[in-house]
């Protein structure tokens, strides 16, 4: 291993960088120039350096140059500099001696955590000093060129694992644990090996051991979470995902997992708290919005079941606001309310459908479902038939028609409707059977004409 002697380290750096192409991507001309100047003082030739001012230009140069060293800002216009890392990994799968370093004014924990998840080589904040930039670049190169024995053994183990030599890999990872005072990475790979051989409890034990050394070890946290989910230990998985989200907050995918597990573990109050925080976050994507709405609706349904109607309405209101006119969410709310005979409240949510959706099947189906609670049976049947004739096919329309037609004693019509419904929506058979059953409760009287 290279001694921590500045001259020796500088020699290693010069040997590494001698033939390397370097891409600096930053929208600030000052930053590009400052970083390039530091590299030149470290022995890099300007001819090795390409400067770009945008994500698009960076992508083009990545494809053209396939540089070994990329230094990028986290924020590149509307794109994230980290996305360049994905691109370069695709272009240069071997990646052994490549470097990806972020130099950025984004000092937020979420950005740093996202960079850590992606395993960047370093994260340097602006304003930097030349001394810090040099030291961090050197450190990254030394780590690449002469990693500690601990990492070398882990790499060996990974190769062995890749070749299916499980026993040898286990030996390597066990040995690696003796080479570091906090061998969380070694524990992680042992865990992975046991996961592969389906020794799930052993795997979890290894991940947990890794977290004992280092409670924010990302790979161990993810490994443990996935292991617990595979074993359907949802309460324990929820604990782990909460920790993951605390330390690595920026991942929208993870936020949706947090919500899903909050529901699965019936931590309904947590859902409401997450909602409050989500409304303040700028980085909200479609998937996150979808999950937040779904979680609020599920919570609302829970409160309906517990007889807390006003609480449920509050949550449905929040879901409706977050949904911003997404009709599927409004639909779910209306159906939940109708299940508890709250037709008046359901009608309030029908009014939240955007005007342009009033000719759509979601609106029309919900309108019929609400009508079913308040209008005479004959009118409901007539309206339902009208919708089908206009080619609006929806499971709810069929359910309403099946139930009301059965109540009206229209045997043939019910048969035809069931056939049609099952053709269109075969996965809804149980619902259609329920609708039929609802029309013929055990104590019902003889069928009446429509």
């Amino acid at each position, binding site marked *: 291993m290279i001694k921590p002697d500045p001259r020796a380290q500088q020699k290693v750096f010069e040997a590494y960088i001698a033939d390397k192409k370097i891409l600096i991507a930053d929208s*600030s001309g*000052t930053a590009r120039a400052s970083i390039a100047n530091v590299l030149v003082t470290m022995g890099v030739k300007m001819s090795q350096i390409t400067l770009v001012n945008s994500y698009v230009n960076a992508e083009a140069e990545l494809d053209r140059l396939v540089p070994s060293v990329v230094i990028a800002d986290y924020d590149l216009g509307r794109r994230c500099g980290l996305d360049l890392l994905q691109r370069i990994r695709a272009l240069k799968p071997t990646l052994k001696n490549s470097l990806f370093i972020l130099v950025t004014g984004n000092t937020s924990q979420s950005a740093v955590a996202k960079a850590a998840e992606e395993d960047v080589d370093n994260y*340097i*904040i602006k304003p930097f000093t030349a001394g810090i930039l040099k030291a961090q670049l050197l450190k990254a190169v030394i780590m690449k060129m002469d990693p500690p024995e601990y990492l070398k053994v882990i790499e060996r183990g990974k190769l062995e694992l890749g070749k299916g030599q499980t026993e040898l890999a286990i030996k390597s990872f066990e040995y690696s644990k003796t080479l570091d005072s906090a061998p969380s990475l070694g524990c992680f790979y042992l865990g992975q090996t046991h996961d592969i051989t389906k020794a799930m409890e052993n795997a979890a034990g290894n991940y947990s051991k890794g977290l004992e050394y280092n409670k924010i*070890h990302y790979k161990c946290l993810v490994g443990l979470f996935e292991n617990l989910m595979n074993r359907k230990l949802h309460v324990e998985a929820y604990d782990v995902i909460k*920790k993951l989200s605390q330390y690595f907050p920026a991942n929208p995918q993870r936020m949706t997992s947090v919500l899903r597990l909050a529901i699965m573990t019936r931590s309904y109050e947590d859902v409401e708290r997450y909602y409050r*925080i989500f409304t303040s976050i*700028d980085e909200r994507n479609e998937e996150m919005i979808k999950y937040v709405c779904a979680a609020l609706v599920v919570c609302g349904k829970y409160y309906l079941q517990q007889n807390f109607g006003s609480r449920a309405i509050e949550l449905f209101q929040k879901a409706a606001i977050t949904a911003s006119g997404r009709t599927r969410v409004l639909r779910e709310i209306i159906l939940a309310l109708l299940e508890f005979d709250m037709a008046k409240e359901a009608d309030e949510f029908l009014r939240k459908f955007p005007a342009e959706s009033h000719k759509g099947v979601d609106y029309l189906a919900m309108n019929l479902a609400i009508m079913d609670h308040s209008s005479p049976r004959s009118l409901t049947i007539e309206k339902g038939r009208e919708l089908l004739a206009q080619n609006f096919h929806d499971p709810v329309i069929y359910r309403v028609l099946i139930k009301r037609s059965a109540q009206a004693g229209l045997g043939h019509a019910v048969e035809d409707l069931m056939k049609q419904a099952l053709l269109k929506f075969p996965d809804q058979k149980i619902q259609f059977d329920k609708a039929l059953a609802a029309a013929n409760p055990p104590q019902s009287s003889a069928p009446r004409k429509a």
Partner: protein
Amino acid sequence: MPKNTSKKKPSEKNDELSAEEVITLSAFESVKLTFEVGNTTTRTAVQDRERIHLVELQERGMTLEVPGRTCSQGHNLMIKIEAATPDKKTVSFNATARVDDLEPLPDTGDERITISLLQFDETGWKDFCKIFSSRQEAIQHFLTAARGY
């Protein structure tokens, strides 16, 4: 910043997190810098403050990106920088400075200037620089802990 080692098992009760601890808004916030820059030589002030960026710190100076025609080499500036951290602390730094070097940036019309500080409070300068050096240290610590090496 979380420490690298923990003797507690993750499942122990006092490790349980409340929802507010799981996702905190401050996690998404950066150190915010606001600038006031006046050219005391020409007696003009920079209006378009959003275009001022602090890129590099020297021992007694800094490199900034400023809007074009803010200054020329040799001009004196009055600088006030306010740094607001995610944990709601604010550090202000005021100084007069001289423009040592200026480079136009043709693609944006901005200028890259290197300034040396003339009159300033040493303690204030140290406190200001410490915001970034502390944050860098914390980031290194976090990266090492998160990666395990």
